[in-house]
């Protein structure tokens, strides 16, 4: 290994260790709130770019340097950008909340185009299942479980060492949002959940900052610039959060890798337009639908709503709220583990493995979608998705016919939520001997068969 390779490796190890120290310090702070914190990190939640010679505070400049002129020459040749436009990018600080599918291309383009300072908020770590869309991260950093903010910062640094960056390895919430967002000119919502979307919207309205918001799921995406030039805010369009059971997220519903790529790239474009003062006078909601025609549709959304709870004429919201309570959902993109059934109607994966081993006759009902069933399933499982089960209960009963006694039914799914709902439904119809397999196939892999695929 060459000396420079070794140096890169040591730098990587150093970063991972810093992450680990920070995580441990956070745990320590929770358990012993009065313990003085180590001085490894200057701020409770931020990593500044340690490569920067000065602090991460953006110093505004009046002219570009010669290297900057050479680097951004393709911008400087555009009459719409030119020297004044490039200076506006250079002197701007943009906060991107979420370094995932949307944040990845957005951050890369903003760094490449010469935005002076980028803030990155993300509390998550890089996982291998992120890499089909989160193009800012790498296999190595996924293996290390590096924080997404750190990983994004490394990519930004490698792309444009002049770009200052600050990482906030924290979950944005009502207690820190105002402080984190204040130093920035524009905020980018690249998050993956409902409560954080309302939080970011409200903080932007209270702080008077433009918000470039996008979302992506499955094959579709949406893009809007909120609270800019008299336009509406997120609450004007969506005053009531959707019921939590109707919200699908990427980890459940899937997402085609390039879809957040398209939307995140468009977010970078809208940030540039906001900074250069080139946004359309008519605000719009842009809809993207990857497999439909046309690919894009634009809906005119006119001005803010006078009755809006936060940006209306008589706002009822004057400070940040409890968004978890407001949305009745957690600020994460993973479904919560439901606890619906009592222990009587549930078995652990280990116990169900014994049932299989002993050869006791039974029915294994897998209630996942057919597309998931095709990824992997246990031998002899019957697939009736939870969505259609209520209308196909007779199919379950047909499988039981012919045996002298009612065969026991074990219900399984991916994570153990839908299987509980299905078990509850079958029990409510008077079926007996129905049991939920706790934790689903995810648990099957960890507890019984490490070779069973995880998706």
């Amino acid at each position: 290994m060459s000396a420079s390779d070794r140096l890169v490796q040591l730098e990587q190890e150093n970063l991972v260790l810093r992450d680990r120290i920070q995580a441990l310090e956070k745990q320590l702070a929770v358990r012993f709130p009065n313990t003085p914190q180590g001085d490894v990190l200057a701020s409770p939640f931020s990593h500044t770019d340690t490569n920067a010679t000065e602090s991460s505070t953006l110093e505004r400049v009046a002219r570009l340097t010669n290297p900057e002129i050479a680097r951004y020459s393709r911008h400087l040749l555009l009459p719409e950008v030119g020297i004044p436009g490039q200076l506006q990018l250079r002197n701007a600080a943009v906060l991107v909340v979420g370094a995932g599918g949307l944040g990845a291309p957005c951050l890369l383009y903003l760094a490449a185009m010469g935005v002076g300072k980028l803030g990155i908020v993300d509390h998550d770590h890089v996982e291998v299942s992120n890499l089909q869309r989160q193009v800012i991260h790498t296999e190595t950093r996924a293996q290390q479980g590096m924080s997404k903010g750190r990983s994004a910062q490394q990519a930004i640094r490698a792309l444009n060492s002049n770009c200052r960056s600050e990482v906030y390895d924290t979950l944005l919430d009502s207690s820190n949002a105002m402080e984190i967002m204040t130093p920035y000119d524009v905020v980018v919502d690249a998050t993956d959940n409902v409560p954080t979307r309302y939080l970011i919207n409200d903080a932007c309205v209270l702080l008077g900052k433009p918000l470039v918001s996008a979302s992506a799921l499955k094959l579709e995406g949406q893009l809007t610039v909120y609270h800019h030039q008299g336009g509406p805010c997120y609450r004007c369009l969506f005053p009531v959060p959707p019921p939590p059971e109707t919200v699908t997220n990427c980890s459940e519903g899937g997402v085609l890798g390039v879809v957040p790529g398209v939307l995140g790239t468009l977010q970078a474009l809208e940030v540039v337009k906001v900074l250069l003062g080139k946004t359309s006078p008519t605000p719009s909601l842009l809809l993207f639908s990857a497999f439909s025609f046309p690919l894009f549709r634009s809906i005119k959304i006119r001005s803010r709503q006078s009755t809006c709870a936060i940006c209306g004429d008589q706002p009822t919201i004057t400070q940040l709220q409890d968004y978890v309570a407001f949305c009745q959902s957690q600020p994460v993109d993973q479904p919560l583990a439901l606890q619906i059934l009592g222990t009587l109607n549930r078995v652990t994966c280990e116990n169900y493995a014994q049932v299989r081993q002993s050869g006791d006759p039974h029915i294994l009902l897998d209630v996942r979608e057919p597309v998931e069933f095709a990824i992997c399933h246990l031998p002899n499982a019957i697939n009736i998705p939870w969505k259609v089960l209520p209308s196909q209960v007779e199919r379950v009963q047909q499988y039981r016919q012919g045996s002298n006694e009612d065969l026991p039914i074990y219900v399984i799914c991916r994570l153990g939520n839908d299987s509980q709902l299905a078990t509850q439904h079958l029990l409510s119809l008077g079926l007996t001997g129905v049991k939920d397999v706790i934790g689903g196939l995810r648990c099957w892999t960890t507890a019984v068969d490490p070779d069973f695929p995880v998706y």
Partner: protein
Amino acid sequence: MHQKVQRPAMQCKVCYFAAAREAVDLRDSEVYEVENSTTLGELLDQCTRRYPALKGVLGQCLLAVNHEYLPTDVPWKEVRLQNNDEVAIIPPVSGG
């Protein structure tokens, strides 16, 4: 010979997005035959009669008529539709 004059029906197109598209078996759009001067409320009633699953989605959707959004304080029954109007049903998408 005198023919009975039929009340001319009109056509409105409904476009479905995200969760609304899933509630209508992944259709992008559909043309509905409706009576003259039908209201948006009546058209949406027809939609939910055809697709009951749409009912649970509609409440949190943003609606647009002819590519222009309908402010949330405008009652659907007060919006008169015209021939060839296009209505879009747009649920919020929150993934990223």
